[in-house]
């Protein structure tokens, strides 16, 4: 039928893995409540499948064969690859949507040279969102990856075009499809600077994103992003693709820099689906 929901959320492993270490439990729980609202919104949309546009972290793709974009068309996925005790998410099987994923991939290919994969192991980049958004793992998932990790990275304007292609593909299938882009704004994950957050940069970027200011969000150079927002800032590609797919104005439902134990400015947002 069409794209019925589009939103964004953070995926940092600390969100689940370091939940118990977090001292600001009030803010943490406020964030969790917003994720639960996002779960409810997806459920209320009647979505029959969920596309997760992610920035995976070398769970599947390495520099021996790194696609700019990849769509999962497998029947089932396993995750997390990380130690479940560390991530605080049990290893589980997640249902895929092979037929729908294949049809979407076929349509995306009309304008974007996307790779596809029937095998995919989920890392925190997908498992943390699913832990909140489909806690029973009963909604078929179509994983999508944009290369935000191994330079040369996918150009921002291509991420935008990819989002448009995903939208066109969703609108061409009879099923109701939801889409969540999951990444970070400024952060310096997995380094001694973990917990560093550039709130001003985050709010500026997210404001531009929510206003659908295409020129502004595509205007960030990787050098500028790295200097101001760290290597984690490269993950804005997932948010950009989501905004492009939705086409409508966004609502930043939650943002805080007050949970540095999660090592990112945690974010939840949604977009109107433009006609």
């Amino acid at each position: 039928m069409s794209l019925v929901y589009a939103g964004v959320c953070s995926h940092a492993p600390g969100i689940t893995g370091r939940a118990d270490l977090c001292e600001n439990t009030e803010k943490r729980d406020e964030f969790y409540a917003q994720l639960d609202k996002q779960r409810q919104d997806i459920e209320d949309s009647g979505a029959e499948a969920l596309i997760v546009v992610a920035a995976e972290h070398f769970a599947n793709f390495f520099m021996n064969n790194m696609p700019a974009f990849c769509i999962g068309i497998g029947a089932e996925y396993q995750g997390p690859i990380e130690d479940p005790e560390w991530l605080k998410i049990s290893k589980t099987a997640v249902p895929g949507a092979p037929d729908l994923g294949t049809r979407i991939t076929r349509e995306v290919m009309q304008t974007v040279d996307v790779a596809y994969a029937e095998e995919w192991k989920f890392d925190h980049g997908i498992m943390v969102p699913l832990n909140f958004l489909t806690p029973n793992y009963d909604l078929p998932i179509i994983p999508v990856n944009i290369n935000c990790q191994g330079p040369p990275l996918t150009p921002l304007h291509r991420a935008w075009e990819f989002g448009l292609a995903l939208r066109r593909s969703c609108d061409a299938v009879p099923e109701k499809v939801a889409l969540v882009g999951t990444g970070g704004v400024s952060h310096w994950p997995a380094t001694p600077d973990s917990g560093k957050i550039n709130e001003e940069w985050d709010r500026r970027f997210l404001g531009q994103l929510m206003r659908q200011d295409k020129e502004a969000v595509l205007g960030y150079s990787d050098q500028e992003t790295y200097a101001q927002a760290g290597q984690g800032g490269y993950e804005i590609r997932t948010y950009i693709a989501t905004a492009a797919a939705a086409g409508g104005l966004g609502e930043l439902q939650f943002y805080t820099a007050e949970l540095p134990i999660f090592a990112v400015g945690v974010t939840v947002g949604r977009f109107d689906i433009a006609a």
Partner: protein
Amino acid sequence: MSLYYLQKFLYVLNRDEGAQKKYQNDLEALLGDFDLTDEEADALRKGDIGLLYVLGVNGQILMHYAAFLGIEWFDYLDMMRKGIEEHGPVRAGVYTMTGEGESFTEEEKSR
């Protein structure tokens, strides 16, 4: 090119349960599958997070490896800082330390 294989070793280890078993049962054989320098192989034998960080291993790969080794989060951060103290700045890649090694969370400061 060696950093490539050092990271590939960890990439394979992080995602492949077969490689994880080999790591536990016959580490030398697993190391032999990759074109590593003596320094890199030794860092892997010791699980030397600090040196691996300085050598330029991507933080995401390194973080998952540290989790595999059962290293607690704040200990992991500390090991990277000590690696820099001992071996100097990160030699390659984009996961360099940008601060002076300070902690950015109250939770770690109050530990």
